[in-house]
């Protein structure tokens, strides 16, 4: 099959690849570019493990064709830590035992990040709503909700 060029910014750096037409963004990120932080759980849009942020919006990389991302700004959990220092959300997930097997974690963190970017002081209800497209089979969700609320409080303390 014919290869097509795609070019986008991934976690701040420029990426240009030739991919097979029809390749999902999830497969392009994992198999071509080597960013394995988005996970392929269901490839059906139901688990949220593949969630990434495209031009500021939460999207499912398993249902997005890579070619439609030309020129886009893509963020994944792999790009969150700065200089070896974990992002407040990553720190909070670890501290709150909100990550067990870890398979859902990158998707959860992406969903939480778009929430906190727009709503720095979310209510518990806001958090539940923001994470409603993401499935976790280990934690029972409560530690994840708590982690997001803790990260939000940590953010507002730094801002103050």
């Amino acid at each position, binding site marked *: 099959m014919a290869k097509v060029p795609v070019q986008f910014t991934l976690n701040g750096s420029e990426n240009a690849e030739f991919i097979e037409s029809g390749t*999902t963004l999830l497969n392009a990120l994992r198999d071509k570019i080597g960013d394995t932080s988005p996970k392929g759980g269901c490839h059906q849009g139901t688990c*949220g493990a593949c969630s990434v942020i495209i031009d500021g*919006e939460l999207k499912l990389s398993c249902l997005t*064709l890579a070619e439609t991302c030309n020129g886009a700004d893509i963020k994944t959990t792999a790009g969150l830590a700065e200089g070896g220092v974990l992002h407040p959300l990553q720190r909070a997930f670890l501290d709150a035992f909100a990550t067990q097997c870890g398979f859902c974690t990158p998707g959860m963190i992406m969903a939480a990040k778009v929430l906190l970017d727009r709503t720095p002081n979310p209510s518990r209800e806001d958090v539940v*709503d923001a994470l*409603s497209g993401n499935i976790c089979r280990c934690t029972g969700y409560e530690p994840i909700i708590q982690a997001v609320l803790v990260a939000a409080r940590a953010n507002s303390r730094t801002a103050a």
Partner: protein
Amino acid sequence: MSLALQTFSSVKDANTALQAPGTRYLGGGTLVVRAANEGDVSTSSLVRVTDSGFSQIAVAGGKVRLGASVTMAAIASHPELAALTPAARAIGGPAIRNMATVGGNLFAPAPYGDFAVALLALDATVVTEDGETPIEAFLAGRDTSRAIVTAVGFALPKTESFRFLKVSRVKPKGVSVLSIAALLQLAADGTVVSARIALGCMADRPIRAAAAEKALLGCKLTPREIAPALAAAGEGIAPITDPIASAWYRAEVLPVHLGRLLSN
């Protein structure tokens, strides 16, 4: 998966490309890419249009025009479309709402198509290059329709005259047991002057509850006066059976939920 994507800037060229066998239009991809991931090989080629009008929302003079690529998230956050927020927010989780388009929802088979249920109650028109089609006729013929939908248009309802309800088991984002939309015009004394009611999951696509609409005329929205309409709600329905609910269950609970929607 082997899919080839063709991108066009004009609808005309895209419509021509869409005539090839095995070719489908790509909206947000939440159904069509999902099907490909699941192993559906009936589609080998996808076509999309990058015309910026496809993502535009226009509200003027009491009329709304939603480009076919407008997403559920864009509708839910639009300040002038508050009446439609409940319907747009009822679809999927946040990431799905950022991807799911109006155009795609018109083609979504039950249990999906909740937004199309709202559009059916609003008596929307569906716009293609060939002209405008009333949504009811469009939905009836959608299986053989090959033309790209460019937009939908409808009169902006007053928030108080438009009601929407989706029943699901998982909250806040489960798939529909059923969905109901109603556009009601009431006289000053509260009697129903006109009623248009659309149902989701009561057939393979959104349908109207024509008998219930008729039975509501001249009634006040009290439990006693709406009773005949609720009794008539099941006329002509053929609900779907899926892992969420059986056809029998859906038919049983329809009058209960319609009653709640009407007496709210």
